[in-house]
């Protein structure tokens, strides 16, 4: 039974979300509140299938699954490889965030909209998993559309005017990036005649680099950097992530922007390949400079904000900068010497997902209890909600990269990557960025713990258990992974992932 399920697990963990989402409105005809339990069951099953696939990946390497039995390039291939294993983290965090969202969303939106919310979350997660594990470039676009549409509407679900504006801004930028992706895919198809990633890679080697192939890679990379919120095109992110309901912010900031990173990694390292016909050194250089700007400006703008969640959203921009920096620091001529940079980028994708979910969920718990979101109104909240605020502090320490937390290791590897490639400027820029991040998180910690309460009413107390437990689990995993499990994780998973992306022997 287990081997049977394992062999089908790559497709099962995906379609269960699509079918589950289509069935959610029907299930909730019986009772509106059933939607949550249904969504939870679907998510848990999806996670179970993903665990089977991950175990198989660990035992015997990447899994391929041919849909409809058609071998590539004729049919669509699902590939659960080391990069695809990001789906594991997506599904795990999804369950944690979903448990949290039960109470929060009942408070935030009317009962009529609960089934719609859970349908959209299932579609969002299904889309993310689809993009991560697919081996077909057009299939990637289709799932990108599902996740984008679900993302836009989840922001506007609260029916507030500002949310509608933020969602529309995201929609316009997102539509532009989708258009670029589609153009890029069309160009690639015209040049190679194929849509399967591995096959495209072979064909590109065979035909060499044409102008079209160059423009295609530019269109695809720009499209994905919009989704990932790189500096000049990050403008949609702060409003969208800051104003969305907190569980949605956690999903969007923790996971959805990483899909853009996954896309870039797929395009550069598994389709075009850095040893391939196109010389990527200039592009990666440009990426590194933009990443520097993203790190610095993301942190800089956060200074002037007063809204707790918008500060967190700007911090996401800054952290995406670190990930892009890791990718940009890879040297084309010396892939073996760039392992640290790639390792840092991959580790930070995972670490930031956990930390940012933690931060948004604990900020959400504070907003849920007090209804306040401005820093000045939240003075002394730490005495009323000690556990939530301690979790917030752990998240803040992790994201600034204090040693002993998961965030430290990610930044450590990226900075080492900068030293490896001998580009000290980038290392210094990252340290400056880290200091700026540290400064405004110190501001938050100072306000919530060391100020005398002014606006808080006496009855504010700890958030309900179903919200507290997810927060505590995430906070604990920040510390536990940072202190004890980081080495096994890196040797067993991140190192092979980095090496396989760079095209090195394991």
């Amino acid at each position, binding site marked *: 039974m287990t081997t049977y399920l394992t062999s089908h697990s790559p497709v099962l963990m995906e379609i269960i979300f699509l079918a589950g989402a289509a069935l959610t409105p029907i299930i909730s005809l019986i009772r509106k509140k059933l939607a949550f339990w249904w969504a939870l069951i679907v998510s848990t099953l999806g996670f179970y299938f993903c665990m089977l696939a991950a175990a198989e990946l660990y035992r015997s390497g990447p899994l391929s*699954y041919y849909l409809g*039995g058609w071998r590539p390039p004729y049919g669509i291939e699902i590939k659960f490889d080391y990069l695809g294993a990001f789906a594991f983290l997506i599904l795990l965090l999804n369950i944690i965030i979903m448990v949290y969202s039960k109470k929060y969303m009942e408070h935030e939106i009317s009962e*009529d909209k609960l089934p719609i919310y859970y349908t959209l979350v299932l579609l969002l997660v299904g889309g993310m998993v689809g993009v991560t594990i697919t081996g077909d470039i057009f299939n990637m676009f289709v799932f990108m559309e599902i996740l984008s*549409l679900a993302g836009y509407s989840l922001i506007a679900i609260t029916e507030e005017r500002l949310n509608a504006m933020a969602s529309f801004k995201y929609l316009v930028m997102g539509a532009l990036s989708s258009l670029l992706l589609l153009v890029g895919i069309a160009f690639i198809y015209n040049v190679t005649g194929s849509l399967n990633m591995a096959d495209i890679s072979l064909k590109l080697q065979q035909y060499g680099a044409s102008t079209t192939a160059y423009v295609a890679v530019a269109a695809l990379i720009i499209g994905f950097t919009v989704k990932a919120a790189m500096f000049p095109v990050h403008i949609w992110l702060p409003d969208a992530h800051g104003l969305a309901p907190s569980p949605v912010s956690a999903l969007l900031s923790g996971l959805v922007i990483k899909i853009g990173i996954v896309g870039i990694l797929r395009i550069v390292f598994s389709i075009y390949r850095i040893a391939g016909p196109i010389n990527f050194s200039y592009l990666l250089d440009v990426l590194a400079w933009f990443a520097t700007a993203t790190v610095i400006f993301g942190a800089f703008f956060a200074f002037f904000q007063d809204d707790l969640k918008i500060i967190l959203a700007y911090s996401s921009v800054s952290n995406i900068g670190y990930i892009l920096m890791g990718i940009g620091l890879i040297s084309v001529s010396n892939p073996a010497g760039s392992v640290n940079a790639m390792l840092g980028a991959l580790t930070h994708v995972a670490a930031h997902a956990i930390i940012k979910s933690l931060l948004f969920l604990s900020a959400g718990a504070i907003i849920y209890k007090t209804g306040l979101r401005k820093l000045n109104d939240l003075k002394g909240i730490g005495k009323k909600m000690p556990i939530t605020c301690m979790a917030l502090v752990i998240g803040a320490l992790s994201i600034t990269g204090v040693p002993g937390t998961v965030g430290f290791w990610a930044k450590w590897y990226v900075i080492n990557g900068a030293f490896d490639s001998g580009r000290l400027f980038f290392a210094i820029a990252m340290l400056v960025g880290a200091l700026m991040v540290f400064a405004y998180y110190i501001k938050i910690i100072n306000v919530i713990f060391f100020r005398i309460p002014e606006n808080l009413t006496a009855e504010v107390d700890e958030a309900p258990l179903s919200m507290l437990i997810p927060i505590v689990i995430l906070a604990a995993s920040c510390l536990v992974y940072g202190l004890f499990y980081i080495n096994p994780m890196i040797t067993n998973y991140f190192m092979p992932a980095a090496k396989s992306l760079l095209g090195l022997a394991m």
Partner: protein
Amino acid sequence: MKRILTFFILFLLWLLMVSAVLALPPIGSETTPVTTHVIPRYLEQGVEEAGAENIVTCVILNYRGYDTMGEVTVIFCALIAVLAVVGREDPKLHTSKVDLVGIKESVIVKSVVRFLAPFIMLFAVYIMLHGKESPGGGFQAGAILGASIIIYTMTFSYELALSKFFVKVRTLMEGAGPIAFFACGVVALFYNQNFLTYIIPGLDPVTQTAMRSLMIEIIEVGIGIGGGTVISSIFLAMEKVEK
């Protein structure tokens, strides 16, 4: 100044795109990668292998069926997105007289629509079931089906339309596309074949082809019904008057 700069940047981007398009392999030539790599197999063996006389249907429902499953989900997602932003229709919120009564005066329009609506729906069913052999299929049929409901609502009244197309019934049918795909795709899993394989091993060839035709038809019908309901539900939900 800002405008000139914008124009200049857009012009550069335009040049870049045009140069990329000019460098494309010539369209229709017999030696381009597009015409020599994957497509010949679709054209030569599609009818036998994939089980539909219409090669387009072969590609969208069989060779690349998973993409179509995703597209159908996108359509479903569009509806859910509309519902998330504006909510389901609410007859009580309807205060505008124009929307409520429809075109009351014109007897001609009403009689023509009353006469034509059933035929439009019949045509949709025809397109839906003929997608396997000739141009057409579930997506087109869904659009026609949705259009017939929209025309009905606009000529007769909104409330009459709501009393004919109940919310609960529509809720049951909206997800028909993804559900039909899922139901037909999962059959193969019971025989340990890959998802969306329509050929079931161990049966005699005649039953095999019949089963495959049946499953492709079910998917077409699912896409048609789902698409039509989604279009009409979006239309009815957007009729809501601003609060």
